[in-house]
């Protein structure tokens, strides 16, 4: 609503320790990856880069990411036991580590997920400190969003008029588009659309039904402790 910091940017976030960047932010990257999967994860492959790779165990970065993939928020005390929980929920996972990757931010994770319905997704996110994150890559497309508002991620064939068609479907229901980013490969386009309010399910269904749309996912903002107000 305003650029002025909130009281709860000073006091908060409420989080599982020890580190807002290496623990809280890491769990959020896992949580966002799960939302982008839109399925119950059965397998996860995670690559940790740079500082995440070097210090993950001391900071519980690995447990935090698995916790996020299981759907735990950064203030959920189950994060500490996330490996044990994952085994119970039949999630298989493995980690690999890349100590020096100059092209990535110092706290970066790549999360690839497989779901029980057959959905898959691959996400790269960076943890910026204070529990804030930036999603940088989805399914190979370069993106840039912080998941602090309702965010719609769409991958479609790059057909003429596709962007107008999709933005029209959203505007039709009176949902205001706050920001929109488009990135392209030769044949496909990725759209990241940030919205002021939640988008009705029928809009998502309508977009999903389009023959030239391959991937539609909604990332909802996280209410981490009291660090945000419900809108």
């Amino acid at each position, binding site marked *: *609503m*305003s650029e*002025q*910091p*909130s*009281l*709860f*940017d*000073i*006091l*908060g*976030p*409420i*989080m*599982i*320790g*020890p*580190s*807002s960047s290496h*623990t*809280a932010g890491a769990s959020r990257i896992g949580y966002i990856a799960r939302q982008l999967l839109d399925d119950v994860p059965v397998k996860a492959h995670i690559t940790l880069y740079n*500082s995440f790779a*070097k*210090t993950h*165990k*001391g*900071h*519980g970065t690995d*447990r935090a990411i698995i916790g996020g993939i299981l759907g735990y928020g950064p*203030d959920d*005390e189950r*994060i*500490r036991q996330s490996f044990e929980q994952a085994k119970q929920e039949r999630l298989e996972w493995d980690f690999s580590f890349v100590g020096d990757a100059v092209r990535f931010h110092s706290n970066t994770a790549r999360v690839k997920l497989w779901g029980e319905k057959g959905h898959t997704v691959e996400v790269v996110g960076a943890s910026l*400190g*204070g*529990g804030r994150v930036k999603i940088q890559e989805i399914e190979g497309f370069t993106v840039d969003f912080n998941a602090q508002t309702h965010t719609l991620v769409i991958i479609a064939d790059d057909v003429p008029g596709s962007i107008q068609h999709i933005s029209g479907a959203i505007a039709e229901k009176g949902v205001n588009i706050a920001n929109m980013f488009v990135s392209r490969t030769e044949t496909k386009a990725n759209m990241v659309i940030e919205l002021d309010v939640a988008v009705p399910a029928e809009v998502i269904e309508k977009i999903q039904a389009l023959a030239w749309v391959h991937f539609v996912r909604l990332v909802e903002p996280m209410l981490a*402790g*009291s660090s945000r*107000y419900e809108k």
Partner: protein
Amino acid sequence: MEFNLLSDVVEYCRREKKDMAAAMLDYEMRNKGVTRDAVYAGLKQILLVMEDSVEQGLTQMTITPSGMLNNWAKAVNNATVETLGPMLKKAVARAIAVGEVNACMGKIAAAPTAGSAGIMPAVLVTMMEEHRISREKILDGLLVSAVIGLIFARNSSFAGSEAGCMGETGSAAAMGAGTIVYLLGGTDDQILEAVGFALKASMGLVCDPVGGLVEEPCTTRNAVGVANAFVSAQMALAGIKSLIPADEVIFATKEVGDLMSPRLKESGQGGLANTKTGREIQKKVFKTLD
């Protein structure tokens, strides 16, 4: 609605005939479009987490995965020797308790950061226990701490990588100092003096954690930060002046942070992290972890 300096906040209080807690409440309600009840509901959650983290650290086993911290809060709390009576001892134990809970992957409220999360809970629990301050009043104390943090963040930085530990335990001690003055009925000007004292004592403090973990020396620096807060508040409440106004002290922390070598700002390359023993611990810790 904007506050750039602590003196702006004091001026607002004078004009509106309000205290600093009410000024921060106005700021939050107006800028975020939320009700008074929503703000206090959030503050209550923060206070509950703070109290729980103190309680956990004083009652549960707290051995960190690295082994660097090992039930220190309980050791201090149960100590038979008291350098300055039971109050200081308990306040110190409370700050260490939160540090240990944080390092053991427990739940804490960053205030303003996770690495400095022990100071405000120790200050507030101590004010409730030793001065019988009501919970309602403590929530107003949190508002005062937040307005101090807000101005600090605006003109300096909470990030260890930018302002060193001065930005973390230093700012938390300043928030705590001002809060104590407020809760004991001090004036707005006295709150600012306490902020000035606390930050002057933290000036130039480096961020040099061993192995890059939020344990050594972070946890004991939180304990010293609590003492700093009470000492600074004591001086301010007695009416002595910081001479350098709090806002100017904050500007100085920014200058000092900028002048500090990057090696001394959360890089693991300088200070305690770079001592012979620090390096040995780091090697040992990461060997056992991997």
